[in-house]
């Protein structure tokens, strides 16, 4: 074989054997699921054979494996990166041309993109570049020593951790001026609002999972309670959004307490599965309680929020109200409402973050973290574990409820479909990927998990596929999340910077 494959430790025959083994594995995994498609015909199911996909799967597995062998044996890094990039392109081609049964390989997508427009060239190059860079620079130890929190590079870590406040302030400033930068771009504001909802949900769940260490797989239930509380209160009792917002939070928190009370004694994994069960129960009830919730059809034409009760955003302002544009002497624009909604969720999210940061430095927050570390020790110090956990659960639920009410008023329409287990999984993934307990981590993770996939809407079908694979990949890369550092809540002798410097060393 070529020179870059030479190694003193492993012979060509051994490599061939290993590759053959993985080729067989790839063949077995792909032969039916990829190789044979079930096609609906009037006469019943029929088969369409796609051997090229099986072949691609086998070849890309072998290429990938070869790269891993090279990595294991400390062989040429450029070689590894080239191989991994090739494998990635092959997989990409395979998926994108999935449904076009005939000349699937006649027009490689990468070439298509390169010849169509400048943006697609950039996207294609960026795709190749990112994969190549990751493959080239990632360290092989990251996975092997999973539990010794991988170092992000001492300098970056020091810079980040000793300036968290500044970074946070910069982040807030960016989000505040965002509408001024993209004010006329409807989809940008929509996307930013969506990301902000998930940031808020992430921050809310962070209290439960990140601080108190309670694994909640049913957080979406509280989101749903908040959304339906607002929708139902507003439709049945004609209450305004500004009154319903706190009520939605209170309802969600009460739900958290009712659900949490019996189950919070349970160990981590059991708690996870029970909360998942609760999430599903709420959804099943929402679907089936037709009289109240409208069942699968959901609730539509939910009232939009006014400008704090002073002014209205509609084009045709109802009798006796004043329009937002009139109030401020502006030209009517449908963007006003969207920008207002964006700022509303920004404020709600910031309140969540502020309260969390503040609570963390209070006895209750310290008790949450202590509970996460050692429940038995907490009991020996007189901390009531149930109440402490309940408070985390309830406060987390309350913010979920706020977010839910916001979601309902923004969408104007809600149905049980918006509150599936997948949502809970996404929110949890945001918290864990961000780094448990890290506020900035949640923002980063929400942008990565929600923002990017939304931007690549063209890949619609593949979005969740990539999403799932990404969750696995990031966990393998950084099991404790992107920014998994804990800052002490109180210091006696040193500054945060000294402390960080000591730890980074």
């Amino acid at each position, binding site marked *: 074989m070529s020179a870059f494959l030479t190694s003193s430790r492993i012979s060509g025959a051994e490599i061939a054997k290993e590759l053959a083994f993985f080729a067989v594995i790839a063949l077995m995994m792909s032969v039916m699921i990829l190789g044979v498609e079930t096609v609906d015909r009037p006469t019943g199911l029929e088969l369409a054979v796609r051997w090229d996909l099986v072949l691609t799967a086998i070849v890309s597995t072998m290429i990938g494996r070869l790269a891993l062998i090279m990595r294991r044996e400390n062989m040429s890094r450029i070689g590894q990166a080239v191989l991994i990039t090739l494998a990635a392109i092959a997989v990409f081609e395979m998926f994108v041309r999935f449904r076009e049964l005939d000349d699937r390989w006649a027009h490689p997508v990468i070439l298509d993109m390169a010849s169509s427009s400048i943006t697609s060239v950039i996207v294609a190059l960026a795709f190749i570049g990112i994969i190549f860079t990751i493959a080239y620079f990632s360290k092989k130890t990251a996975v092997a020593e999973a539990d010794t929190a991988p170092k992000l590079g001492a300098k970056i870590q020091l810079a980040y951790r000793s300036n968290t406040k500044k970074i946070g302030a910069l982040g807030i400033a960016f989000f505040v001026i965002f509408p001024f930068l993209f004010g006329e771009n409807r989809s940008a504001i929509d996307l930013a609002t969506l990301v902000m909802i998930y940031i808020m949900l992430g921050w809310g769940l962070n209290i439960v999972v990140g601080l108190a260490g309670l694994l909640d797989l049913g957080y979406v239930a509280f989101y749903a309670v908040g959304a339906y509380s607002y929708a139902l209160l507003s439709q049945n009792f004609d209450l305004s959004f500004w009154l319903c917002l706190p009520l939605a939070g209170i309802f969600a928190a009460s739900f958290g307490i009712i659900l949490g009370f019996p189950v919070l004694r349970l160990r981590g994994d059991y708690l996870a599965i029970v909360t998942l069960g609760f999430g599903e129960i709420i959804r099943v009830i929402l679907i089936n309680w037709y009289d109240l919730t409208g069942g699968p059809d959901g609730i539509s034409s939910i009232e939009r929020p006014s400008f704090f009760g002073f002014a209205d955003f509609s084009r045709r302002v109802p009798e006796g109200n004043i329009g937002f544009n009139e109030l401020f002497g502006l030209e009517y624009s449908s963007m006003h409402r969207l920008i207002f909604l964006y700022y509303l969720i920004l404020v709600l999210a910031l309140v969540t973050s502020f309260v969390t940061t503040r609570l963390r430095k209070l006895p209750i927050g*310290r008790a949450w973290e202590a509970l996460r570390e050692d429940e038995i020790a907490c009991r020996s110090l007189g901390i009531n574990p149930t109440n402490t956990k309940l408070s985390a659960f309830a406060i987390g639920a309350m913010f979920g409820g706020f977010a839910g009410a916001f979601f309902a008023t923004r969408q104007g329409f809600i149905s049980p479909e918006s509150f599936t287990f997948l949502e809970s999984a996404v929110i949890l993934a945001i918290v864990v990927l961000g780094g448990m307990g890290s506020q900035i981590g949640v923002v980063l993770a929400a942008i990565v998990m929600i923002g990017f996939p939304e931007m690549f809407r063209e890949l619609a079908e593949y979005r969740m596929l990539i999403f799932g694979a990404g969750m696995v990949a990031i966990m393998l890369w950084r099991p404790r999340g992107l920014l998994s550092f804990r800052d002490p809540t109180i210091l006696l002798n040193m500054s945060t910077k000294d402390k960080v410097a000591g730890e980074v060393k």
Partner: protein
Amino acid sequence: MTDNVQLEVEHLTMRFGGLVAIDNLSFTARKGEITAIIGPNGAGKTTVFNCLTGFYVPTEGRLTLYANDGPRLLERTEGFRIPRNNGVARTFQNIRLFTGMTVLENLVVAQHNRLMEASAFSLAGLFNLRRYAKAEQEALETAKFWLNKVGLYEQADWNAGNLPYGSQRRLEIARAMCVNPSLLCLDEPAAGLNPRESAELNVLLQSIRDDQGIGLLLIEHDMSVVMKISDHVIVLDYGKKIADGDPESVKKDPAVIRAYLGEEEDDELPPEILADLHLDPNA
């Protein structure tokens, strides 16, 4: 005499299924005294602690703690309530610190209940009211006092998990003291310590006894610690009390020697083993 009693254990029995871990055990521990519970492995010492601190509910028996505000029945108190208001605080055989939190945070968490009240269950704290700020300052002072006492002031901002083993043991004691207990239960505090650390521990425990005037209950294997500092020794074997008295008399008790060394005649034992046990070979 009785007004000096800190803890009274009467007819304590603990069964796990068919296994009798503690069998009709009665003893008292006094204020301002160190009471040691010793016995071979599996004698039920830690089980006594777990009953006292509410981790187990005793099968039978009465456990009375004489705190400042009067007697309390521990066997009827829910576990986490036992440490509250001059209750019982404990340490663990395998140290249980909040390893990811700093040394200082460990000590502040121990003052949770007082701070919780001061922060009006977080509301006062959330709005940064002065009442809470004052309480937090006090908690900090208490923490500093104990940091100095156990010689960890310099390491206050370290993560507890990064402390050397001996310091972790001392921190755990300091944390238990921050609960402001009237009875401190120490489960093998000298385990794994080197002779110097062990000697420092003796000084610390004696000063807690003398300065705070509370009762200390001690499970220990290290006879040098037990014999040197305890005022009162209780010997358990297979869940039964086989001896009770001051260290000197317990040391000579034939039942104790049998329990530790088996049924052989005393004089068959080589003198170095007896010396290790701090028993006088000529006794």
